[in-house]
């Protein structure tokens, strides 16, 4: 798996590169600003690009824009963006209407090496990866009386992990249950939420995200637990 890294923080960039190399990835190129990153990514055609949202020259969301551009030009390149903090519209802009090969992690997630490496791998393989914290935030905004409230706690857990982009196996591992139980939960979830079941992880992610976005986009938002 070939990776291109875009990160202006040199220490962090080096750290990511080392982690990935240790995990068996081939770090094809590194860049310190958005423009160079995009050039290198287009040139080296990696399987996945890991890029910081805030990069020079503007340090606002140059990296994000470069990522979006990259996805547009090379749809088959996975893009994993790292962000200092959670901003919902990063996820929205990035995912657009296609959650395939997209990931959004908080920067500190890099320290959770396993999670990080796993996410990079999923995105490279065309799946999705959403930072659990981000999912938690999105799930936190529930309707007062909606199907979400009808989920059992276990189902909510499953939903959360599923929204992160995990496969059924990944969900089973994360929650220490059997895969069959996961499948049962997922079916129940989709049914309660009124979503048509779909097996592909990224489509599931998209479905859930869309659902959650729809819930959030109605003019009422509810307290988090």
């Amino acid at each position, binding site marked *: 798996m070939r990776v291109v890294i875009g990160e202006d923080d040199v220490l962090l960039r080096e*750290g990511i590169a080392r982690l990935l190399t240790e995990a068996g990835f081939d770090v094809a190129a590194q860049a310190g600003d958005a423009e160079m990153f995009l050039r290198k990514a287009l040139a080296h055609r990696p399987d996945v690009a890991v890029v910081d949202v805030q990069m020079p020259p503007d340090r*606002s969301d140059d990296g994000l824009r470069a990522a979006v551009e990259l996805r547009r030009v090379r749809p088959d390149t996975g893009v994993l963006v790292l962000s200092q903090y959670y901003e919902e519209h990063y996820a929205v802009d990035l995912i657009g209407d296609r959650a395939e090969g997209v990931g959004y992690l908080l920067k500190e997630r*890099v320290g959770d090496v396993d999670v990080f490496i796993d996410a990079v791998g999923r995105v490279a393989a065309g799946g999705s990866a959403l930072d659990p914290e981000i999912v938690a935030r999105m799930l936190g905004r529930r309707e007062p009386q909606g199907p979400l409230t009808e989920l059992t706690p276990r189902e909510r857990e499953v939903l959360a992990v599923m929204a992160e982009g995990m496969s059924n196996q990944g969900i089973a591992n994360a929650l220490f249950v059997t895969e069959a139980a996961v499948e049962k939960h997922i079916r129940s979830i989709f049914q309660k939420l009124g979503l048509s079941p779909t097996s592909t992880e990224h489509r599931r992610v998209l479905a859930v995200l869309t659902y959650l976005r729809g819930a959030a986009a109605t003019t*009422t938002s509810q307290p*988090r637990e």
Partner: protein
Amino acid sequence: MGGGLTQRTLVASTVLALLVAAAFAVLLRAIASERSSARLATDSQEVLAAATHLERLVLDLETGQRGFLITGAPRFLEPWREARTALPDARRRLVRLAAKAPAQERRARDITRAVDSYARGYSAPLVAAARRDDPSARSPRVIEEGKRRVDAIRRLFDRFVEAERRLFAARDDRSERDARRAIIAAASGLAGSILLIALFGAYLTRAIVLPIRRAAGMAGRLAGGDLATRMPETGVGEIGVLEHAFNTMGRSLEASRDELRFLLEEQAALRRVATLVARAVPGSELLDAVASEVGGLLGADSTALLRYEADGTATAVGARGGPGGETTANGRHTLEGTNVASIVRRTGRPARIDSYQGAPGSIAAELRARGVRCSVGAPIVVEDRLWGVMVAAWNHEETLSAGTEERMAQFTELVATAIANADSRAELAASRARVVATADETRRRIERDLHDGAQQRLTHTVITLKLARRALGDADGQVPELVDEALEHAERATAELRDLAHGILPAALSRGGLRAGVETLVSRLRLPVAVDVTTERFPPALEATAYFIVAEALTNVVKHARARSAGVAATLDRGVLRVEVRDDGVGGARLDGSSGLLGLHDRAAAMDGELSVESPEGGGTVVVATLPVPDAD
């Protein structure tokens, strides 16, 4: 006119008095003469009566003596004796009474002598003789003598009486004549007096009454407001003085009224200008209005306000009038040559030019060409600095009073105030905007610093600790525990720092605009909040202000309102962004320092906007801010 009214009156009165006196004198004389005539008539009567009485005495004497002579009876001597006794008195009386007329007196004396002679010389001896029985007493000769004497006496008496009667008639005639004359004199005197009085009255009327009536009429007209009325000065003496005084009064009232009118107009104009100044009407409108008022008040053909520039030129900033009714060319004029603006620039004091003939300079030439004859300028001094000048120009010959500069100065003072006010306001607004901009800039810097510095470092720390934890593997003991603890702290620090950065200036606001910022803000709350925010983007300062208003208002809702739900709305309507935050809580919020809304109010004001709070007790709260969207520069 010459002798004065008093003298004339005196003269006329004197003449009249004399005339009347004369008439009365004649009358009195006539009366007196009438009286004396009447008295004389009475006297004649008395004289006649006395004569008759004496005659009768004589007759009594004769009768008595005859009777005695005839009868010899003593009883006939009684009347004889009585008569004889009464004779002296009667004689004396007659003489006395007849003494008024000398001729009559003589006659009366004649009579009395004759009577006395008869009485003593004849009658007495006769009676004595008869008593003696003297036969001579009865002799025919004696009787004849007696008869003769009596006849003579009678004849005397007759003559006397007739004379007396003639006298009486003459006196009577005279008396009548006198009376007639008196009546005529009195009548004519009276007529003359009446005529004179009438003439005098007519004269007085003409000389005094009519002028006074005219004066009263004029006074009435003056009182009624017709101050232009005058009266002819034809009167004599004091009347003439009165007429003249009335005319002078009319003139001075008229002059006072005109002056007062002008003052009122001036005050009204000043008040109008002051109102414009107080209402902070925009500069060009104000200056044009001032030019208009001053020009109208002074009757100038054109008025202009010029601002002096640093490079020696002057810019016209307000004007009225000029050829064709349009303002003179707006724009800059280089100040050179002789003209009011240049003089005022040099001296800093009011100036006037009475004629531009032969005045040097292009401005003077232009003014001549436009037909300007004379002009006056008053300096406009703003905060002790010569800012500009107000110039009024006349195209016709006009004698300008000395107070013109002062009159203009009252207006230039107002203009200076307006300019100072506008400057102050502009400065204040700029200062506020600067304060807010600085605050925002500081925020941005802090956020950037946080992000670039502390946050990054913390992220590093978290990552490093995680890696360290991983490296420790499943080992137990103090080290893994310590690492875990450190990691926990670091993660919490990261979260807190993130929240802090977000609170200072959320990234969502900068990148996604107001709506994104509000949504993120709302997502962190434990309260259901309805969001209806336009997705339109605005200049960063405006978005920041709107965001902070929402943030502060929502903070208040969370802290104080005890609300069950809230709503945020932001809509763009005709160039104004209207931001509304409402909740259904307990209300009672006030726009003062206690709620932090005051700071929002200032922030809104710094952006030329307004903030209002409606928060009845128990009735929820609505915070509304209206922020004008600045035009793109």
